[in-house]
Each structure stands twice: as C-alpha cells, then as structure tokens.
C-alpha cells in the first residue's frame, strides 16, 4: 500500500533521525571531554558514514573537519577487509597522509556491524592539546618533516571486539606530553561513538538494513542533486583568483595559491594548477585538508541549504597538483594547514566566485596568529600547554551588513568557541590586561570589516615558553567589490626591562621570564563595497564608538565628523570632489 507515500515519509524521518543521533554524539563529546581546545573551544566534529565510508550526517562544527570523517573511514576500509572489521572494534588514526588533517586531530571510528556487514561508521575527530613532536602543543613552526610534528598514527585498531588494546594505547600515551588528558579525551570520543552506534542499532527495530541503505543512498543523491542545481544556476565560465600565504617560516617570499573554478552546466571543477610548489615549513596542506577546504569554499558560494555530506561533495571535482603547496609529498610538514593555508584556499575560491555567488560571500577574514604557551604552572607545579584562542581576528563585511569582530578564520568559521577570559585565567597562569577592539583596523567599505582585537597577557610562569604560529603579518584580509583590505596581524613582547620585541608569525620556542607581557593585535576584516557609499550616520557612530578615528573617517570614507556629529556640508563637498 502507498509505497510512494511511505518512501516520502521514510526519507524525511530517517534523515531527521540521523541528524538527531549526530547531535547527541556532539553533545556527549562537548560535555565530557577535557582538553580546553576540545571542550571549551569545541575543536571537534562528529558524524555518521555509511558502509562505504560516505559521510551521511554530521553536526555543525569546525568547517575544515567537515569532510575529514569520510576520508578517515575510507582509509580504514582501504586497509582492513570486511572480515577484519568486527563488532566491538574501534579504529584510530591521525596521519595527514592517510585520512587525517594534521597530527593533533585524532579520528576515532566505530563500526556498526549487522549480520557480518558494516551498516554504518560513527566517526569523531577532535583536536588534542599535544601529540608529541619537538614542541609542546605540536605546532612546530620550524619542522621540516612531519616526523618533527608529533606521533603519526596510521589507521589501526585501538579496541578489538570490545577489548582495549593496551599495547597500542600505551605506545600512543608514551609519546605525548599530556598522557592523562589524551587518554580521557580518547574515552570521550569512544563514548560518543558508542552512543551513536547504539542509537543506530535501534533504527533496525523499525527498518530493515536494506531499507536503511536505500534511504541513505537517496539522501546522498538528494544532496548531489541540490549541489548540481546550484552549480547550474551559475553562469558557465572559468573563474580564477590568486591568494597568498605570508611565508613558510624559512623563506621570506609569499607563497601563491592559484585557483580556477570551471563551471560547465551542472559540473564544477576547482583546479589549483599554477599553485606554488610545496615548501620547507609547516604551511603545506595535504590532500584531506585541501580537498575539504575546496569543497566547503565552493559550497559556501553555492548556498546554505545543501546538506554538507558526501553527496554534495561528489558533485564538486577538486584537482590538486602533486608536489604543490596544496598536495605535498609525504613527509612534508603540515601542522598549520587547518588554519593556513586552508583559510586561504577558501578565500581564493571566494575571490574567484564573488561575482557569480549572488552576494553570498564576504570580504576577507583575519588569519590566525598567536602562540602556544607552555611550562610549569606555578600554582600547582604541573605541566600545562595552552593556545591564544582569544587572539582571533575579525570578519569581512558582506553586502547588507558590517563584518563581525572576533570571528574564527574561515576554515573554522562559526565552529570554534572562543574561551571566556575568566575561564582562561583559571586554566592558565597568566593575567589578562586587555581584550578590546582596536581603533582603525577594520577594512573600509560600504559595509566595513569587523575591527581587530587587542589582546594582552602577562605571564606568571617562570619561565613560560612560547611558540609563534600563524600568518597574516604581510597579507591582509582582502577587500571585496571596491572595499578596502583589513589590517595586518601584529604581535609584540614587552620584557620586564621595558624592551619591546616585535614577533614574527612563525617562530621557534622562546623562553620568557615571569612578568613578560605579550600583546597581539589581530586583523580587522576586509571591507565590502565602496567606502564612499557608506552611510555617513554609520561613520559618525563608528567615530563616537572609538572604532574609527576622525582622520580615517575623512580619509577612507570622505565623511567629516566634528564634535556635534557629521558636518554634512563639508562631507558633501569632500565626497563630490573625490568622486569626481
């Protein structure tokens, strides 16, 4: 009876339920994990893949982790035959050349085996505070090989038929600086997967495996159709752009990312031919990160309503030249890749597609730039390692509204949760002196960028070690549609002797004495649209709010602001002169 009607109902019902299960997994992960980067900053993703490893459903989380789950599961499937994957098994991996992003991100994969066949894989990926290597926190700006970045874990079993393989666990924990925290957080990941697997098994009470598989296939096709329709809605053509990374921490020259997006009917190809060769430092981006960045960049241009699953991904072809910055040969170092150049891969696509994306895309965003810091906490004599998450830059303007301050870089947009200053000070031995927006940093535009943020901390540990990593000290967030670029990142130390030392974006470990102050001024976002078209009332408010100086109001916007407000006559005159 009513087969067609039942099918219509089943599809929506199963789709909603899979999303509910991933939400429950995400909730469990967030609430039960330990390391700050994981629990407070929410640097994780989780989802459900089908038996072939195609991603079907995932939580909204860190965009650059969006597709990582499918790569991880597919690596497990590639390595293990179906007979070798049994009920109660759990797999672990982190190798960027075998299904991972970068070494600190560990993937945990738990299969649901039904009648000898894997019906689903639950997968969670999370960023852990330390994975070994030459420096604590595992962002090693001076690594020249991945071996210096930490422990590499290929796809292997961590649990076999319900029994934790202690030899494997011991080997992993012996190679990291925070073994207890890592162990706890692996428990949290396995626990969340276990919840997912148990819920998926309950689905079998209502539907046969064949029906579930059929519906999942439909959901993937559905996302692919939506993606192809959106591509077809864009005019055919070749759209290209160039974006740049400051440097690799060794050479001084900017590194080019070249993209050409080719649209033919419902086909889209994102081709990075012409991108610079791979480099010595850790700004290379291996296949998983580069492909994910290209997919999500293109999907941002295509529209918000497409489910971010493997169906959508398979409609977008990504070409990554071998041996280039975006597809280096093993063992090139890659740890920075999930921030830079992932964000720059995305922003290259934004610039290429800006004219055809229906004003969906913003101007440039701030790039991440700040240190990891580590040492012995004088309050409890324990080792700690932390990150300067409160140093986030700001968002670019977009048609219709100004950019927001204090946004994660594009690769992490909307997913990272910046810690409260209060939580940070309880966690780490430092005193925060300032965390406020900085005047004259936002890129001018009809819709200006978000202002950058000044963030100062005074270290209490003696000594405290810092390792700088990031980018954006040379290349600012781009302006769009005649908007102006945002400001550059700037970082400096103030020693206890009153000496000011500007820092580079990529530096090896530096030891600081107690009382040293580190100040980071992050990028203001790029502006969107001609600044001369900005409503003078908004410029006046910005001046009143101390976000823009009067001099900048005049220079960038052609608006004369005096004590009483906008001087309309002077403004009209100035704008007419400069427009002429």
């Amino acid at each position, binding site marked *: 009876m009513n087969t067609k009607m039942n099918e*219509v*109902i089943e599809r929506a019902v199963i789709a909603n339920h899979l999303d509910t299960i991933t939400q429950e997994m995400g909730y469990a992960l967030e*609430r*039960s994990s330990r390391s700050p980067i994981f629990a407070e900053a929410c640097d994780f993703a989780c989802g459900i893949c089908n038996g072939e490893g195609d991603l079907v459903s995932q939580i909204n989380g860190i965009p650059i982790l969006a597709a990582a789950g499918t790569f991880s599961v597919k690596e497990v499937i590639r390595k293990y035959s179906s007979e070798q994957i049994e009920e109660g098994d759990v797999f672990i991996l982190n190798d960027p050349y075998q299904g991972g992003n970068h070494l600190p991100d560990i993937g945990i994969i738990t299969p649901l085996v039904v009648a000898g066949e894997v019906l689903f894989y639950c997968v969670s990926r999370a960023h852990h505070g330390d994975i070994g290597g030459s420096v604590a926190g595992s962002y090693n700006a001076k690594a020249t090989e991945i071996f210096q970045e930490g422990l590499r874990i290929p796809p292997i079993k961590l649990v076999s038929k319900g029994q934790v393989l202690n030899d494997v666990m011991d080997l992993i924990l012996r190679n990291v600086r925070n073994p207890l925290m890592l162990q*706890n957080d692996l428990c949290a990941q396995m626990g969340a997967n276990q919840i997912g697997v148990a819920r998926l098994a309950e689905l079998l009470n209502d539907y046969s495996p064949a029906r579930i598989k059929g519906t999942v296939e439909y959901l993937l096709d559905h996302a692919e159709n939506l993606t192809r329709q959106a591509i077809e809605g864009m005019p055919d053509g070749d759209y290209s752009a160039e974006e740049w990374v400051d440097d690799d921490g060794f050479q001084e020259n900017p590194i080019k990312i070249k993209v050409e997006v080719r649209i033919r009917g419902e086909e889209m190809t994102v081709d990075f031919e012409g991108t610079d060769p791979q480099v010595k430092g850790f700004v290379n981006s291996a296949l998983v990160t580069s492909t994910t960045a290209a997919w999500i960049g293109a*999907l941002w241009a295509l529209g918000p309503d497409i489910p*971010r699953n493997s169906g959508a991904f398979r409609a977008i072809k990504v070409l990554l030249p071998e041996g280039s910055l975006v597809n280096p040969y093993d063992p090139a170092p890659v740890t920075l890749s999930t921030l830079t150049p992932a964000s720059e891969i995305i922003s290259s696509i934004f610039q290429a597609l800006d004219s055809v994306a229906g004003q969906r895309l913003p101007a440039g965003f701030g790039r991440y730039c700040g240190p990891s810091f580590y040492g012995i906490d004088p309050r409890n004599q324990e080792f700690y390692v932390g990150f300067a998450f409160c140093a986030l830059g700001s968002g670019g303007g977009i048609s219709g509204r100004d950019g927001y301050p204090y946004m994660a870089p594009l690769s992490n*947009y909307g997913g990272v949760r910046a810690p409260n*200053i209060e939580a940070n000070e309880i966690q780490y031995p430092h005193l925060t002196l300032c965390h406020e927006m900085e005047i004259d940093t936002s890129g001018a535009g009809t819709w200006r960028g978000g202002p950058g943020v000044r963030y100062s901390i005074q270290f209490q540990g003696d000594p405290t070690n810092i390792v700088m990593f990031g980018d954006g000290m040379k290349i600012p967030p781009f302006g769009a549609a005649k908007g102006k670029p945002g400001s550059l990142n700037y970082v400096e130390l103030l020693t206890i002797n009153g000496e000011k030392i500007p820092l580079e974006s990529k530096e090896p470990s530096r030891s600081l004495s107690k009382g040293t102050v580190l100040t980071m001024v992050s990028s203001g976002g790029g502006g969107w649209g001609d600044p001369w078209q900005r409503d003078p009332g908004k410029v006046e408010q910005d001046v009143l709010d101390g976000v823009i100086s009067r001099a900048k109001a005049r220079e960038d916007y052609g608006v004369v602001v005096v004590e009483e407000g906008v001087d309309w006559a002077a403004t009209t005159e100035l704008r007419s002169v400069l427009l002429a």
Partner: protein
Amino acid sequence: MYEIAVDVGGTFADFIVRDQQGSAFTTKVPSSHEDPLEPIIKGLSELAEQCRLSLKEFLGQTNKFVLGTTVGINALLEGQGAKTALITTEGFRDALELRRSRLAEQWDFRVALPQVLVPRHLRIGLRERMDSQGVSIKAVDHGQIEEIAQFLRQEEIESVAVCLLFACRNPAHEVEFKEVLQALWSGVFVTLSSELSSQLGEYERTVTTVLNARLSPVLSNYLQDLRSLLCDKGLQVPISIAQNDGGLTDLIQASQSAVHTLFSGPAGGVKGGWALAREQRLPELVVADMGGTSFDVSLIRQSKMEMTPQAEIAGYPIQLPMLDIHTVGAGGGSIAWLDKGGMLQVGPHSAGAKPGPACYGLGGQEPTITDAALIMGLIDSSNFLGGRMTLQKKQAYEAIDIKIAQPLGLSVPEAAYAIYQIALSLMVDAVYLMTVKKGYDPRSFALAAVGGALPLFATALAEGVGIRQVVVPELAPVFCAQGLHHARFQVEALRSVYGVLREIPSSSWNQVILELQSEVDQELSRLGVCPKQRKYVWSADLKYPDQHHEINIDFQRVAADPEVWQQLGKEFHKTHQKLYGYSQPEKSLLLVNLRLLALEREECLQTESDQVRIQVNTGNPFTCKTSKRIPKSNELTSVYLRGAFQEVDIFHWRDLYPGMCLQGPALIKKTFTTILLEENCEAELDQARNLSIKIGKDDDNYEYQNE
C-alpha cells in the same frame, strides 16, 4: 475566598480562578498590544460574572493573585528597553560585542547576529581588578566613579549594568561601585552581575546583566500600573509573579530582576505538568505543548521539574538556572514545503496567525500542518477554535495539491498524511533527544498533551518514542494559567567552592552551608513564608578536575562527613556513565558550586493528591474490559490513517463522565482541541476529568516506572 492565576501570553491571556471548594472557572481573552492592562480587567470581569459577583466584590474576596507575564520577553524581542550603560573592568568593555565566535548558522554569512544591546560609547571600563581567585589586585578608583556618574547623567542613562571580571568569585568591587555611584546619584537603577549569577564566564554573565538592566524598568512600570489598577478595583493582596524556575516572587523583587521572569508564562506550563504528575502519580512525565508556531517539550523526572543551568533566547545567552524547555519549529501553522531536490520538509517557517494556514482563507497559500489535519479529517471545519472560525477545506486541498501532492505524484490525502508523519517525526526526535541526551530512557515516561494542536499527535507521538501512557488534562487550553496555581515562593542561593571534594576542610564546608542557609531564609522571611512551610534541596555541581562542564547532584545530609562526600562521588560517577558512555571512579572530583534551593511547601496540593491517590488506588486505572462502560457513539467520521480513509467514532468531551472508557480509533472533540485516539489505544476519563490514554493493548510486559 478566591485564588486567581493569570497567564498573559502573546496572543491570549488565560484566566483561572479557584474557590475554596476547589471549583474552577476559566476564560480566555485576546491579548492587546496597545493596552496590555485592558485584557486583564476584561478577563477578571468575566470571571467575576461567572462567580456572580461584581468585580470589586470578586477581587475583594481574592486572597491570592498569581501572574505569568510576557512583558519582559516581548520587550526583548522587539528591541525595547531602558537606555542602559555598561560598566566593565578596564580593558574589557567589548565582551558584549566580541561574543564567543561560535555561530548557530555557519553556512550562511548573510545571517545577522542579534543586536549589541549597549553601544560601545556607553560601555565604560572601570579601573579595578579581581584575580581568578577573587583577590583584589587593583582597588576600585573612586575618582573615576565621579566622572562616570557625570557622564551617565549627561547621556540621560536610565539603567546601569555592572559586570566586572571575577565578580562571580568575589563581588566586593561591584558592590563598592554601586554604593559609591548611588551615593552620588541616588535612585539610579543599578544591576550587578553578582546579584544575578555566580557562574564563571564574563560573556554570558554580561549579557544576562545587561538584559536585566534594560528590561527591569519596563517590567517595573508595568507591574506598578497593574498594581494600582487592581488596587483601585478592589484587590487587597499583593501580586505574585512567576519566575523562570517555576517559583514565585513578589513585585519588589520582580521589578529588579526582569531577567528572572522571561519564561514566566511557559514556566506555568511546566509547573502544571508537575502538578499533573503528582495528581496522576506519574513521576516521569514529558510535558508536550503544541500551539500555532512551535512545539515545546519539558520534563518532569522523579516528580521534579527539570532545570538547565543556562538557556538562550533570540540568540542571547541567559546565565541563570531555569526550567528546561526545548522548542522546535513545528506548530499548527508550520509550513510544509519541497526543497529543490524534491524532498518533503515541514517547518521551521510558520504561516503564523495572519495569513495563517491556507484553510483560514485569509490569503495564505502555503500548506501547513493544520491544512494536512483538515484534509485527513482530524479537525472539523465548522468547529475550529471553539467555533470562532470556519475553515476552508477547498483552500487546504488546493494548497496541498499544488505545492506537495502533484510534484510528488501523490494523492492529496497521501500528501497530507506524509506532512502529518514528518511533523510527527520532528516531535518524536525532539522528545527523544531531550531525554536520551540526559541519560533517561524515554520509555519510562508518560506524556502530558497540552496546547490546542498536540492532542491530534499525542498518541502517535507516544508510540513513536515508546511511551505507553498519555494524559490529556481537562484544563489543557489554560494549562499554563492552571499551573501557576501550583506555583509557590522559591529562592535559590549558590556559592562557588572550587575545591577537591574530599579535601575540603570541614570548617569551610560548614561555613558555606551556614551562609547558604541564612541567605535563603532571609529572603523567604521577607516573602512572608514562615519557617514551618519551608523545604530545602541541597545540590552540588561536580566534575572531574580537568573537565569543563559540571553535573549537578542532589544530596540530603549536609554534615561535613566523608560519607556524605563519598555518596556524592558515587552518584556522580553513575550519572557520568549514563550521560557520556564512560566514568572514572578512581579519579578525585572537583566541587565547583554548592547550591541550596528553598521552597514554600505546597500544603493544599498534598491533600489534593492524596484524594486522587485514593481514587486511583481503588483499582487498575484501566478497567475498561471489565467495567463495560463503553459508550456507543452515534456519530462517525472519515479519517485518513495509514494509507486509507476509515470510519471512526466521534465523541464529545462534554458528554464524557468519569469512569467512561473509549476504544480507538476515535476522535474526541473538545473546545479548542481534538484528541485522536489511534486504533490500539484505550482512554478513560478519571475523577479529576483528565483523559488517561493507554497505548497498546498488551500491558503484560509493562510496569510503571515509579521510583
């Protein structure tokens, strides 16, 4: 003497009055945006009339007046509020605007964030600093407060919010600022973050404080007006106001803490569920409410209302413990649509009241859940909203046909049924997630179906989640107001401790216990609750030391005794295992906060529920098979269920009498709602005139999960 409860909502104001014999009178009056006081007088006059009294006599004989209000939340949603300045620690005046970077909608850059509630030039950094241990490392600069006072007057500020770093650990600087400022400018309204929340996290605490500063003057004005109006009309008792946690407070407190009343009305609904749970002896109860635009779920567990440590409204975090109410965009007006890939979706967009569902005939073109129910034969076109509105079946048919049925190749009834089922699945998932994410088994709950639209879905929803019993209360249409009747005065106090559980010195434990006790007692005395009427609930927020989120565990004995702590630890590990799939009993625990909730006892309710218990205990509540009081219906209607139209019985609620049993499939019609009794269901009206429905005929392997 009378007890009055009024719930003034966005579209309707609901009224219920009880006399000393326990008889209830109710009415429902449309809310008024222009004159928010007018509907209150109108509704009260109608009640007075029902009691055959003049309004003056009626109010004069009233000894309790409880109000649920949406004044605060409406002002928030409409962007209104007092002109507010924000004082922060110097160097940190942007917490409000910087937010925390995480977004609800990350795949659409165009989506705007909620408005920043205090512009930057009215945010002032004060020279002072507490460190993370709550020790002052920079004293408050009194000279600067003078400058601030002058600036605030000059800017004609109406309200001042103060949120300083680590005031949650030590409020001294905030208190000092307030004293100095008020000495310079007496009468200025000042909200301190430490008066509202002791939780860590300056962003959330700042937003909470600013909201309170903006909204309290608005609420205060409204309450003053209401009080003088009601006094004029003869009311002689103070007004009590329902708060987010389901407890009551008085007018003085409410006027200073509007943020505590944002969920005043919905809290009444949860309280109603709580009372129902006690009357029906259903300690585990899902309270589900479906109105025009949304589907709201809350839980009663172990006879207690479930709380959340913080909530979010319109994108603003509120850092206060409150009743946990989860909302999904699936109401009667929710729109069914096909996405570009041809997949059928329901909600979250709603056709609202205007133009409303297509069948309202007010110009709505989009098919909604209400249209689907009409086509399925579940609702009667001539008797909608108690006969106030006639529905246009043709319009509903056309909207579903054009927008859904034809593109999918389905018949119109099939498409309507698909819409119904998908809406249902959204509700099933919502109830499911609400329970399982807290480690509860949804099958151990019963379901209370309230609100106009839910009873159409209730039996199917219960079945989808695995719930075996549904209750539709007699007073479902004024359920929130009815719940307010059960609300009592309630205060909570909290101290942050931050120590390893087993290493806390007995002396400091005892001191915290004493402080909490005296704080709540002082407030209860002010509210006029005598010591004999007081009840206390102690709890502790615990976590593994390196963890970021706490779990709240109740405890009974407050002695500084290792056994008490051991028991707390045991409970924690057990709960952790349930919630997150693992636990580590070998680890020590960090005690973050100690909490004390003090409540006014509900004496009258005790007797009420005793009576009910006696009645229920006279036999199995489902006695249908033996009692044979199964009425015949002489009315049939055609309803589309499981792929075909079938004839089902129609019953009218007004014709039912206690003890009467009904077998599904049937429709039970009631003013403002219709109950769908599915095939495998049996229903019985109890002595309190609540309809109790059992899902599934086979009750052999089912037992009540009373604990």
